């Protein structure tokens, strides 16, 4: 390996003889033996060593996948109401396919009547997909007293969605009006025809029904004279605004599982909604809100903090002063106050396409960006003055190189840790707001709303423990995993501990 | 009768990466009023040795075994922590490297000093305060009364170290262990501190164990020097003769690596090749062998014991080739090769 000739470019150092060269090469070989590790490799190794953080990471990934693929799973509807029931205790699947496939002749007469008439509107059930032959429940808004409407299934009807009856025996059917598809695959409209008392009287409910069905089947050209078109209400249900990918998954589910869905493995709540399904679907909203809101706060915070830190001096001072002032305000209260007021502006904002959820994201993001900006600014400040930055300058690195190669990776680690710790806080906050009624609304479901359901049924009479325990367990597990992972990341990325072990 | 006699001290640490042998079969003794310098690189075991003597090695993962640690009539290795506590800070004291972190930043100087007297001599707070003021004066701190109520961060580095020294000497210990007392200080302050320690030693008759990696410090202060490498003593002897003629290749390497003020500026600085060994995986033979310029066949498999070198009075070395070294001409301190 060693070459014993002098080489022309040894220059001022004079001739480099063979022994010297051998010695230098040996040094080089030794140096190369010590494999350096980048910050990320080091961090990953340490994270893997931290068993609970590692487990948490995989748990969260698995849970995230579950949540993402929720429409694919054969779960009961999270918002369909089955108001005649009490909360049903957890049951094994094969006992409890009770959502599905009741015989067609089943019971329009024995079911308790519905009542409607007041001005309130409310969602009655939920529809899964129009590609099916059978329906389970329907998302419609009927004018009427919310608590008394009892939806039923009508199997085999492609277009009748539900049949309801009120206490005085007036019936209504809800069906899709052809030609009004809005270019989507899901039925979303409710057209309600109410049939008068006379039609009902004479004990001819079955006859009436047949009559109606025939009329409908024949193309709906004519309906019995007694049919009266009520107001068309259209209110977004759970399935509205569903992005394309989710709808595709729903279709896939229908193809795979048909009508079959798991029974109440974790029980149902007082309105007949399946707890397992609500936990899974609720996780989507909770995760969505917390991730997006955290990202919003991250964006705001990092930009603000990095700018302040980098510019330094008086600008930095001023910017941080503003943060201090805002920090002093107990933000929770201001947020609630803001949400209250923004609710009143809702129609105005809706014109801009800013829906309730968007407001939500920004308001929540607005709380957490303050700390993020402080953290980032602190990090940038300390990095600016580090010797390695000086060293890089001395070697001739340009400003942008310094920023991207030296400062950004170090800031990133802090940001990641903080992000992982903010997400559970936001989740808690969202739950908190929903609990108070200021957050997510039905028919959407979030974990906060689940907690509300749980707390509402805590009474001295009966313990519906599954309504409290299961949602709490899901929430606890996720939040715990996030916290443990965040702590683990912080330990793994902390440069002070790096290499020391 | 030596005031401190350590026999066959072993300290190991059980970590999840294996057992680390930090101190391996170390023995030495210290006479009254004598200063022993312990020299070595980081990882040589010099600090752990002193911590083990004081009973301060943290006990899960550390395991301390000794043939005997005889101090002032007692065997420290046999004592319980409770009994050791009575000795620590009283008859045997230790001062540490960095006075900024070694002093409690939230407690006044006076408190940290008086509690020693309160614990060991049962003095009242008021009496202790008087003694403390005097102690501060003894270590050369101007205006000691005022300084008593200061917090450590309000003092300069040199003053803090003086406070540490005062703290160590408050109860007139028989042995003072100084672990790198000057390393964290500026060079000019270093000289002052060393001078102070010498004066106090002279006044109080304290035996000192001076632990350092700085050969200059050792040369100035110690009567005897003990060189440690990879947890073992590799050479021991009186200071000047040892510096004049080292009898172990490691010592020689250390000495020759010191640049001299009158050396040739174009000469390459010499250093000891290679890296210190991994204490969790020590070789069967001599730990220094891979880096040794004097090595022979058997060095890799057979470790030499620390023995008196024939013909050299009061000098011991753990090397098969110590005779070869003894016969080389004596060198000037720190001459380049």
């Amino acid at each position, binding site marked *: 390996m060693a070459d014993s000739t002098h080489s022309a470019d040894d220059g001022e150092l004079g001739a480099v003889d063979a022994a010297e060269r051998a010695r230098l090469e040996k040094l080089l070989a030794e140096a190369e033996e010590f494999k350096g590790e980048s910050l990320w490799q080091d961090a990953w190794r340490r994270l893997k060593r931290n068993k609970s953080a590692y487990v948490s990471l995989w748990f969260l990934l698995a849970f995230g996948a579950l949540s993402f693929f929720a429409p694919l799973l054969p779960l009961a509807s999270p918002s369909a109401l089955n108001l005649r029931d009490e909360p049903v205790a957890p049951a094994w699947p094969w006992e409890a396919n009770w959502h599905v496939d009741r015989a067609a002749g089943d019971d329009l007469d024995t079911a308790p009547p519905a009542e409607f008439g007041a001005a309130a509107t409310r969602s009655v059930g939920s529809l899964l997909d129009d590609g099916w032959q059978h329906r389970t429940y329907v998302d419609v808004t009927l004018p009427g007293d919310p608590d008394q409407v009892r939806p039923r299934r009508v199997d085999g009807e492609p277009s009748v969605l539900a049949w309801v009856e009120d206490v005085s025996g007036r019936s209504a059917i809800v069906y899709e009006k052809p030609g009004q598809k809005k270019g989507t695959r899901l039925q979303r409209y409710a057209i309600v025809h109410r049939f008068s008392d006379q039609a009902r009287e004479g004990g001819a409910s079955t006859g009436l029904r047949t009559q109606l069905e025939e009329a409908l089947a024949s193309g709906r050209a004519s309906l019995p004279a007694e049919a009266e078109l009520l107001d068309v209400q259209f209110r977004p249900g759970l399935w509205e605004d569903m992005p394309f990918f989710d709808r595709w998954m729903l279709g896939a589910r229908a193809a795979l599982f048909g009508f079959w869905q798991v029974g109440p493995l974790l029980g149902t709540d007082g309105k007949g909604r399946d707890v397992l399904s609500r936990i899974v679907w609720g996780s989507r909203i909770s995760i969505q809100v917390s991730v997006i809101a955290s990202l919003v706060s991250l964006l705001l915070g990092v930009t603000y903090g990095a700018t302040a830190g980098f510019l330094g001096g008086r600008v930095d001072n001023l910017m941080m002063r503003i943060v201090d002032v805002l920090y002093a*305000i107990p933000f929770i209260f201001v947020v609630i106050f803001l949400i209250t007021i923004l609710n009143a502006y809702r129609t105005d904002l809706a014109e801009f396409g800013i829906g309730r959820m968007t407001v939500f994201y920004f308001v929540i993001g607005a709380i957490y960006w303050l700390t993020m900006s402080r953290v980032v600014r602190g990090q940038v400040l300390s990095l600016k003055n580090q010797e390695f930055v000086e060293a890089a300058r001395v070697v001739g690195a340009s400003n942008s190189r310094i920023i991207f190669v030296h400062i950004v990776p170090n800031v990133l680690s802090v940001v990641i840790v903080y992000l992982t710790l903010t997400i559970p806080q936001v989740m808690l906050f969202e739950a908190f707001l929903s609990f108070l009624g200021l957050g997510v609304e039905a028919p959407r479901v979030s974990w906060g709303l689940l*907690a509300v359901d749980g707390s509402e049924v805590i009474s001295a009479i009966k*313990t519906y423990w599954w309504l409290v325990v299961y949602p709490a367990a899901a929430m606890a597990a996720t939040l715990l995993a996030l916290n443990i992972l965040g702590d683990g990341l912080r330990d793994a990325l902390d440069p002070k501990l790096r290499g020391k072990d | 009768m030596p005031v401190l006699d350590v026999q066959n001290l072993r300290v190991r640490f059980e970590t999840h990466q294996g057992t680390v042998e930090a101190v391996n079969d170390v023995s030495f003794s210290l006479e009254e009023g004598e200063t022993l310098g312990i020299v070595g690189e980081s990882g040589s075991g010099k600090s752990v040795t002193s911590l083990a003597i004081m009973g301060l090695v943290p006990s899960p993962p550390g395991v301390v075994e000794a043939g005997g640690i005889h101090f002032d009539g007692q065997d420290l290795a046999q004592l319980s922590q409770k009994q050791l506590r009575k000795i620590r800070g009283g008859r045997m*004291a230790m001062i540490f490297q960095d006075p900024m972190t070694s002093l409690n*930043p*939230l407690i006044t100087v006076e408190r940290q000093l008086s509690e020693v007297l309160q614990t060991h001599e049962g003095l009242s707070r008021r009496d202790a305060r008087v003694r403390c003021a005097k102690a501060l004066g003894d270590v050369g701190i101007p205006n000691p009364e005022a300084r008593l109520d200061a917090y450590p961060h309000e003092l300069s580095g040199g003053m803090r170290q003086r406070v540490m020294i005062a703290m160590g000497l408050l109860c007139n210990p028989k042995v003072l262990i100084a672990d790198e007392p000057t390393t964290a200080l500026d060079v000019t302050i270093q000289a002052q501190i060393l001078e102070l320690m010498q004066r106090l030693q002279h006044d109080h008759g304290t035996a000192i164990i001076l632990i350092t990696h700085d050969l200059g410090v050792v040369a100035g202060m110690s009567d005897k020097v003990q060189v440690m490498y990879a947890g073992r003593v590799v050479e021991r002897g009186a200071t000047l003769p040892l510096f004049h003629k080292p009898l172990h290749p490691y010592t020689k390497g250390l000495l020759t690596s010191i640049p001299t003020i009158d050396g040739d500026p174009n000469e390459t600085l010499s250093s000891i090749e290679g890296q210190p060994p991994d204490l969790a995986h020590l070789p069967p033979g001599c730990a220094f062998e891979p880096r040794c310029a004097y090595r022979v066949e058997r060095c890799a498999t057979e470790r030499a014991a620390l023995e008196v070198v024939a013909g050299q009075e009061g000098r011991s070395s753990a090397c098969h080739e110590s005779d070869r070294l003894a016969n080389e001409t004596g060198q000037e301190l720190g001459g380049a090769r």
Partner: protein
Amino acid sequence: MFAFLLRRLIWGALTLWVVVTVSFFLMRNVEGGPFDGERTLDPVIKANIERQYHLDWPLWKQYLQYVGPFNLDETSGIFSTKTVPAPDGTGEIENPDYREDVFGGVLAFDLGPSFKLKDYSVNDIIGQSLPVSVALGSIGLIWALLLGLTAGVASALQRGTGWDLSLRLVATFGIALPNFVIAGFLILLFAFNIDGLPVAGWGAPRHILLPSLALGAPFAAYIARLTRTGMLEVFSQDHIRTARAKGLPDHLVLFRHSLKGGLLPVVSYLGPAVAGILTGSLVIERLFGIPGTGSHFVNSALNRDYTLAMGVTILYTVLVYSLNTLVDLAYTLLDPRIKLEES
């Protein structure tokens, strides 16, 4: 010290001003809000509003009226005159309301009438409910400190043992679960299984026990964690080694040398903790049926009682700010290395 307090006061005033002003403008412009002319209001409330807010005045005057400290009403305020023109146009009569209410507005601690609860001003509501909330919150904080500090120190001392691990597990649960879930569990536990502790209502000391525990639990968990980390950090520091080398007995090493340093992060945390307790009280008061300011606030948010909502927000802003200032002061007292300017 004086300079510090002065500076804090100025910034506090600034903060408050921001809150007040923003609320003012938001409330003014809200459709269907309190000042929307089309909205039908209870006549009593409507009268109150008009009397208080003078909706016919120019905006700047309304703002000044709102902020205070002076009432600008021509009849009863600071600018009122002794005599006013007679209603029938014949000369002047004496003004019976002359300078009745010279002061008004937020700066004069007048937070206006409630929007939903007739006959009550915001001050009344707050006056009645605040002592309740303060009692609840203080005891909650005491629980948090008591449980948290003990658990944290014990955990640090027994590091690695079963005790440590189980305490840490409990603490992690306390941090991860929202407090209404914890409260729910406590209610389930105590209402059905263990007698003797009521789960609703207010009036006797035993009513405070459960809700304050539920309120303080998440903070106890966090404090336990902070304490444990802080103590472990202190234990590994050099000066503890020095203390041991001096032969000090264990209890001195712990209480004199370690505790102070280890607890510093907890003192820092007290500020956010108090804010958090205020927040948590919203939920706890609701769950346990406690008539405190928190539950009023929630109701005001749901019922669109804007003045009450805003009044409580202002109150809590002031409270949190002052407490934070106190905490910072306390911190400097504990740590001699920190000077006030830096906090």
